[in-house]
Each structure stands twice: as structure tokens, then as C-alpha cells.
């Protein structure tokens, strides 16, 4: 605990032996592909699979008529068809499936399925969808959720008022491992699915519903996951592969290519936000008013929860007496949006942090000073009325990141190293027209599922002697997506049971739900479950040992594979445990949250808050609009760093995704269609784009959390981007109300 233990999956990952979901292979398996709609909005007049079915090597062609159970599914609202039913609502919506001997035969066959569409005019603007007459994309209309937050005086007055309108583009998770998996029909008429996901049990629930099968006939095992970042919370090929396997009686593998992946998972909601901040002359915030419009695209996915976050967390980690926020999620014919790292807080942070800089400028205050004067503290009241009841070192994070050394200024003389300049070796500048800027931003993020969700994890821990050695096996269904949960689970078991040998059982649905690998929650909630299971195992083991020793010793403990009382080693755990097998399963919950009031947004909405602050230094070529991020430094409070190396990895990786959204990453949509579904046209940061980072990690324990820990994964993605945009503004003096910041925003061309 607190050490940078190595990953149990590390060696297979560096030798190429680790089995990802796209590496699965079985004798006799066939390949599935998806036929997707080319139109963002259309009625399906007819589907003719005849020509496809007649092709040699084709085993099956399926449409919605072949879905035996519920034809729609969804994480929060069941509104998304397994295969399109009469209408398609986004470009890329699955319409039909093909299974064939070879993936290319399947692709060719899919092209020969004749679909007759009546094409409609798509609804592509969230505010139009909400407030103007037009197509109702779902029976209940185009509003997914409206979160209203009302706190304090409805008509507050302030000395200084600043307003702004901000836009955030649609970001892609761009995990590298494509959506993929293998479905294997079983003898009982059920199916085994090996798949990359973030939450096996929520998948299982939706698959069972679509297949019309009970949970014991739909068994899921986690295959190796090549990144997730929210993009694997929704189903992708899961039901499709199962349908094809059950129809053909053969194992069916499905692997999206990169282009299909852009259509095969939800994205980060694009946002339009209007903010108004009022403050007194001393810099104390009097009020914040905000309207936040999130484009949810064609289906709900996790839009209700994203709206909840954007609304309840939308003004940043500041103490504000009067707050009025309206956050809306809309249905449109754009690609469906849902979970991505930072989940509603990322979008809002671009707006509230830009507003804080604008306010600082209006007041003649240093931007960090203004933030510190209004910083949330332990005991402060959040806009939801919730009292922050664990450390909230917002001011300290800002002061510490401000105190870090700055990179040296660019030397005005001598020939610069092109690699240090915007444009790099493209040789676009030797320093002329290049200006430097520094910007700050601070983030907070709710950890765990909020608003009354029954958020729990299950852990099974077994202690026994194997080959003469005391061995613990830890079994959870909680998804390892790269973050290092398997390492943390083993660290907790080693710490709690004092054993060296820990086996991680495969992640599957043979054990209860581990909840989602999202919301920065797994070390907290699954970690809490593993700890609780270990405590029960330890209690029973100590009882067995005391019985064997024939005495009662209240201070007995397990350490380093030994049984210890006071300073005395009473014996090896393996000897004293003998042939006893101790096996405990625990369902563990964090303290409950509650739904917020529908009219005021007030309530104990969130179980824990996590905080981070960034400082960015940028060089901007003002003639070409190119940006080089020179430094990106971060201070974050993690409560307790269970694995410091993994914590740093989360901060570095999360910061890089924020950098991407700030200056390069956007799914370009035109008329409801994605224009750049490839890594050629959708750019994510390379090793040349990421600067070295100074990082400081604080450990202020949260008394409510296991080991005092705080979720880590999301905060860095929230504050890094706004800090970079603030630095570009500082360098150029431009308003820059839209991210990603494009070259033309800087050059004005």
C-alpha cells in the first residue's frame, strides 16, 4: 500500500502475449460485420438481404426482426435499437448484421444488402431541437433532461459583472483497442461473450433483455481492454455478436476498424454555454448564472447523468452564495454522446475558468488570487447545498502550482532548436511571430455514481494454502481498462492479509457486479469491497488460528506470511491455516447519495469531490496560429496514493486528453455526418505534442473513504485544457471562446 507495485499484467503486455478482445480466436469461428446507416435521419422502407445471403461463405444476415427480446436498450433510458427499427436517427446506426467465413466476405456481403431509405432533414442543433418547432426524434420529445439549480437570491446584484458564451467541440475517447469480442454459443442454448468493456454486469443486463435470456445463460468474461475513457460504457458489438452466434451455432468474432469505431461508440457531448458572473470589488463572487446546452445526439446513453454533473458541478470549485444554472441535454440527429473522462465537468470547466480569468481582468486581480479568494474549502457549501465534508485544498493546489518553477524563456539570440517551436521541424518559424503565455485552471469532479444511484462493488477473496504457500485469490467483475485496478486489488489483499502470493481471478459475471470502471470510482468502491472482503477473511482466519493454537489473543495479526502477536512470530500462516479454505464475498457500498430536488437542484448529490490544478505555458505562432504547449504542470490531491506510479500515470494521461481537446481534437460534424472518422483526420496528441510535466500529489485523507483515498482519473482531464486555453489567451490577447482552439481562431483568417 503506497508503493508502486508492478502490474500483474505487465509482462504479458510487453511480450505481446496479453490477450485483447481483438486477439481472441477459436477453431471454427466466423466473422461478424455491421451494416450501418449512411443517413443521419431516414425511414427504412425495406431491407432485402437476398443477394447477401446468396454469397458463398455467408452464414447469416440479421435485421431487427431477428432480435428476440426487447428491441431497444440503453444505460439509463432504453431508447436505442439493437438494430434499426423503421427509422435511423444517426449516421452509422446499425441496420443489419452479416456473419461469414472471412471478414472481407462479410463486408462485401453487407454492401449487397439492399436498404431502401426515405431520407429526412436531420435535426443537428441542440437548441433548435429543444426550443423550435420541428421533428420530434423520440415520442417524449427532444429533451433528455433539464437540471435546474437554484440557490440564494434569484435577483442578485454585484459591482462587477462579466458574461461570456463558450463552445466545446465533440471529443472522441480514441481508445486504441477497437471495439471487439468473441461470442460462443453454449450447449444450454445460452452464450458466452468475451468482450472489452467498462462494466460487465450492465452489459449483461442489456444483452439478456435483447436476447430474451436469463442472466445464467448469458455469461460474460472480460477480454483484454485497450483503453476505454468512457467509450465502452455503452454496448457496441455485444448483442450483435451474440445474435450471430446463437443464429449460426458458431463462435463469432467482431472487430471494428478505426472508421467504424468512430461510429460505434458515444462521444463527449459538444456544449454551448452562456455564463454570467457577478462579484464585489474585493473579488468575492456574488452570483453565477449559467445555461448549458449539451447535444446528446440520437440516443440518451448517459446524457441524464452528464447533464446532472454539468449542472451541479458547472460553476467550478468556488463558494458562491447565489447560483442559477440550467443544464439541458437534447436529442438531435448527431452521433450519440455519453460518457467520456470528466463527464460534464470538462465542458463546464472551459466556461467557468474562462469566466474567472475574465473577472480577474475586470477587477485588476491576478487570476490565481481571484480563484483563491473564492476557493471551496472543507465545510463550505456547494451549489447543491451539500456541505463539503472532506478536505478541499483548492487554494493550496493553486498556490503550489503557481510556485513551481517556470520553464526558461526562449532565448532571443541564436538559432533555436526547431523542435522546441510551434510547427516543429516543419520549419514554419525560427521564433519570429511567436509569443508566450501562462494560464491557470482548477478542476473538481464528483467521484462515484451520484444522485441516489445504488453504487456498489462486489469482491470475493479466498485464502488457502497452495503448494505450501499461503495464497489469496481476489475475484471481482470490475473492469481493468489499463488504469491498474488489478494491481491495486492485489496491493490491498497483500496489505490486509499479509500474504505475498495473490492470484487475480479472471474478471467475469461468475461473481457479483463490480460496478463501472468510470467516474474515478474503482479504487474507492471496488477497493473498498476488496478491503471489506479481506477483513472478513482475516477475521475467520484468525479465529481458525486461535482455535488451532488453543488460546485467545486479541492482538493477533497477519504480516509477511506470518501470524504475529505483539512482537512475537507465532508461526507461518500456511502452517497455521493448514487445509482450511476461507472464502468470503462482500457487496460494498459507499455512503448513499440522494436525488436532487427537481426544481432547485438541492441535495446530497455526490459522495466525494476530487480536485486538481494546472498551469500551462504555451508558445503561439500568431502568424500561422500554431500552438506549442511548453509546460503543463499539475498539483492534485488524491487523499492517499495507493500506487504512486499509477497515480502519476493517470495525471499525465488525463492531462494529455485535456490538451487534445484544447488544441486539436474534434469530431467534425456537418449535416449530421462525421467528416473525420480516422486517425488521419481526427488528431490526438503525439509524443511531440506533450510537454514534460511537473507534478505534485497531495495526500489529504478523506475520512469517509477506504484508506482516505480520493478518485484520481478524471480531474486532470478537466483542468489541463482550460489552463492551456487561458495560456493562449494570455499570449495573444484573444477572447477564444471555442475549443478546440484552431489556427484560424488565432490568425483570424
Amino acid at each position, binding site marked *: 500500500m503506497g508503493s508502486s507495485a508492478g502490474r500483474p499484467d505487465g509482462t504479458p503486455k510487453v511480450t505481446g502475449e496479453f490477450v485483447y478482445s481483438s486477439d481472441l480466436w477459436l477453431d471454427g469461428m466466423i466473422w461478424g460485420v455491421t451494416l450501418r446507416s449512411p443517413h443521419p435521419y431516414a425511414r427504412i422502407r425495406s431491407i432485402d438481404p437476398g443477394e447477401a445471403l446468396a454469397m458463398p461463405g455467408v452464414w447469416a444476415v440479421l435485421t431487427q426482426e431477428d432480435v428476440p427480446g426487447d428491441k431497444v436498450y440503453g444505460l439509463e433510458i432504453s431508447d436505442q435499437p439493437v438494430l434499426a427499427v423503421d427509422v435511423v436517427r444517426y449516421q452509422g446506426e446499425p441496420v443489419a448484421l452479416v456473419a461469414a467465413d472471412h471478414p472481407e466476405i462479410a463486408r462485401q456481403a453487407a454492401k449487397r444488402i439492399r436498404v431502401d431509405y426515405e431520407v429526412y432533414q436531420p435535426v443537428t442543433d441542440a437548441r433548435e431541437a429543444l426550443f423550435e418547432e420541428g421533428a420530434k426524434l423520440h415520442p417524449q420529445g427532444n429533451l433528455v433532461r433539464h437540471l435546474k439549480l437554484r440557490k440564494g437570491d434569484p435577483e442578485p446584484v454585484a459591482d462587477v459583472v462579466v458574461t461570456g458564451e463558450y463552445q466545446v467541440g465533440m471529443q472522441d475517447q480514441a481508445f486504441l483497442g477497437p471495439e471487439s469480442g468473441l461470442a460462443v454459443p453454449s450447449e444450454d442454448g445460452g452464450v458466452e461473450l468475451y468482450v472489452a468493456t467498462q462494466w460487465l454486469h450492465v452489459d449483461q443486463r442489456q444483452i439478456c433483455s435483447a436476447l430474451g435470456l436469463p442472466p445464467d445463460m448469458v455469461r460474460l468474461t472480460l477480454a483484454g481492454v485497450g483503453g476505454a475513457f468512457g467509450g465502452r460504457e455503452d454496448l457496441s458489438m455485444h448483442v450483435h455478436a451474440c445474435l450471430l452466434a446463437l443464429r449460426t451455432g458458431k463462435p463469432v468474432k467482431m472487430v471494428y476498424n478505426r472508421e467504424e469505431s468512430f461510429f460505434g461508440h458515444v462521444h463527449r457531448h459538444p456544449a454551448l454555454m452562456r455564463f454570467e458572473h457577478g462579484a464585489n470589488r474585493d473579488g468575492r463572487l456574488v452570483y453565477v448564472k449559467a445555461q448549458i446546452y449539451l447535444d446528446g445526439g440520437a440516443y440518451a446513453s448517459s446524457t441524464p447523468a452528464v447533464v446532472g454533473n454539468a449542472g451541479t458541478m458547472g460553476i467550478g470549485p468556488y463558494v458562491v452564495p447565489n447560483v442559477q444554472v440550467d443544464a439541458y441535454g437534447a436529442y438531435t440527429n448527431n452521433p450519440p454522446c455519453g460518457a467520456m473522462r470528466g463527464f460534464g465537468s470538462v465542458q463546464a470547466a472551459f466556461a467557468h475558468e474562462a469566466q474567472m480569468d475574465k473577472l480577474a481582468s475586470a477587477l485588476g486581480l491576478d487570476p490565481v488570487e481571484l480563484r483563491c479568494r473564492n476557493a471551496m474549502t472543507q465545510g463550505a457549501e456547494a451549489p447543491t447545498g451539500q456541505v463539503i465534508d472532506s478536505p478541499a485544498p483548492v487554494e493550496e493546489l493553486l498556490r503550489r502550482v503557481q510556485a513551481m518553477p517556470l520553464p526558461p524563456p526562449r532565448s532571443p539570440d541564436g538559432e533555436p532548436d526547431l523542435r522546441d517551436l510551434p510547427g516543429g521541424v516543419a520549419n514554419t518559424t525560427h521564433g519570429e511571430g511567436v509569443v508566450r503565455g501562462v494560464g491557470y485552471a482548477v478542476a473538481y469532479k464528483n467521484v462515484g455514481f451520484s444522485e441516489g444511484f445504488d453504487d456498489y462493488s462486489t469482491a470475493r477473496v479466498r485464502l488457502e494454502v497452495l503448494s505450501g504457500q499461503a495464497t489469496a485469490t481476489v475475484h471481482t467483475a470490475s473492469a481493468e481498462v489499463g488504469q491498474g485496478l488489478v494491481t491495486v486489488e492485489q496491493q490491498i489483499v497483500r496489505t490486509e492479509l499479509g500474504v505475498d502470493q495473490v492470484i487475480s481471478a479472471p474478471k467475469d459475471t461468475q461473481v457479483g457486479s463490480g460496478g463501472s470502471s468510470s467516474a474515478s470510482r474503482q479504487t474507492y468502491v471496488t477497493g473498498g469491497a476488496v478491503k471489506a472482503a479481506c477483513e472478513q477473511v482475516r477475521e475467520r482466519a484468525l479465529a481458525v488460528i486461535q482455535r488451532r493454537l488453543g488460546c485467545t489473543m486479541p492482538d493477533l495479526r497477519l504480516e509477511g506470511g506470518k501470524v504475529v502477536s505483539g512482537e512475537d512470530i507465532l508461526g507461518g500462516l500456511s502452517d497455521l491455516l493448514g487445509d482450511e479454505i476461507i472464502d468470503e464475498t462482500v457487496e460494498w457500498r459507499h455512503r448513499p447519495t440522494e436525488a436532487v430536488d427537481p426544481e432547485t437542484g438541492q441535495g446530497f448529490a455526490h459522495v466525494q469531490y476530487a480536485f486538481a490544478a494546472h498551469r500551462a505555458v504555451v508558445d503561439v505562432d500568431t502568424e500561422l496560429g500554431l500552438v506549442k504547449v511548453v509546460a503543463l504542470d499539475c498539483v492534485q490531491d488524491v487523499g492517499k496514493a495507493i500506487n504512486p506510479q499509477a497515480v502519476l*500515470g493517470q495525471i499525465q494521461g488525463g492531462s494529455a486528453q485535456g490538451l487534445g481537446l484544447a488544441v486539436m481534437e474534434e469530431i467534425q460534424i456537418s449535416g449530421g455526418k462525421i467528416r473525420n472518422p480516422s486517425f488521419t483526420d481526427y488528431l490526438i496528441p503525439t509524443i511531440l505534442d506533450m510537454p514534460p510535466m511537473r507534478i505534485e500529489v497531495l495526500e489529504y485523507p478523506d475520512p469517509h473513504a477506504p484508506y482516505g483515498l480520493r478518485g484520481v482519473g478524471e480531474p486532470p482531464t478537466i483542468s489541463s485544457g482550460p489552463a492551456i486555453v487561458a495560456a493562449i489567451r494570455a499570449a495573444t490577447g484573444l477572447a477564444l471562446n471555442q475549443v478546440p482552439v484552431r489556427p484560424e481562431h488565432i490568425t483570424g483568417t
Partner: protein
Amino acid sequence: MRITCTINGQQQQADDVWEGESLLYVLRERLGFPGSKNACEQGECGSCTVYLDGVLACACLVAAGQAQGRDVRTIEGLAPGGELSAVQRAFLEAGAVQCGFCTPGLLVAAHDLIERQPEPSDAEIREALAGNLCRCTGYEKIMEAVRLAAARRSGAGGLPDDGTDHPHQVITRPDHPGIQRGGQQRGPAGRHT
């Protein structure tokens, strides 16, 4: 068609290969070498990087027929006999592996860099790995890993005992005096089944 080539020093043969297949597909789906990864299949991400006659190539951009008679070395060939190479060990120790999907391609590219340039500067490391996308790590620990592997290879030692060479990353425990550096000793790895 039939493809015959050498993979990691052994003669291999694949039959009934469709002309449109890539070397990556043949490696992964026909010959049992799934270590090279299929992240973009258009030469942008570097996850399928292999040596082709000793020169780096994206296996997704090499038509299967182009591999006929050639020498291919994949991630599976970097640890002959099960002994991890210096870059593989360094990636593990530095924490450069998270989801690991980019790792095989990065390892082949980093291995090539260190073979060509035993003491690369940071700028040279970044240049050499600019064709390999990683979405998890933010690249910082990949930089540390390559520096470590190069230092080890040139006999210059390597990381201090605490497993990091980065002076800018600290863990501060406000309830304890002093500042500790991130990255402690490696614990027992346990078995992963």
C-alpha cells in the same frame, strides 16, 4: 495465394491468403502472432510496428504478398527465450504500460532507436516515437522508460532505487514532514491468471 516468410527467425507459411490481406492480418489471424496490434489499420498509430528486413514498418500498410520471402521480426521476437529485452524491462519498471495496446509497437520502435542511437537525447526519443500513438500515458513514462533502457544498455546504470528518474514528480503527505518522491520499490508481482 501462399505466403512464405521468416518470422522471428522461423520459417512460416500461410495458405489461402486473399490478395487484399495485410501482413498484419496474416500475422494476427493466420500465423498466430497477435502481438502486433490493429488500432487504426491505416499507418497512423504505429501499434503494428514490426521490423521488415531490419527496417521499421507498419504491418498494416504492408500487403501480405509483399512479405513473401522476407524477414519479419515482431514484438514476440523481442524476448527470445523468455528473457525480456532492456526496453521491455524498462517499460515495466517506469510504468510506461497502462492498457498496453500501443506497447508492442512502441517497444519495437524504441528497440530500433536504441539499436541505432545508444544514447538518444529527449528530442531524438520524441522524434523516433512520434509515429506511435498512446492514449493512456501522456508519454511521460514512455520517455522515462526509453531513457532508462538506453542508460542500462550503455552501462550508465539507470534509475535510482526508487524507480524513477524524474525529479519533478513528488508525493507530498501533508501529515508527514518532508517530501517523498513518487515511485517506490516494486512489490512482489504475484500471479495473474
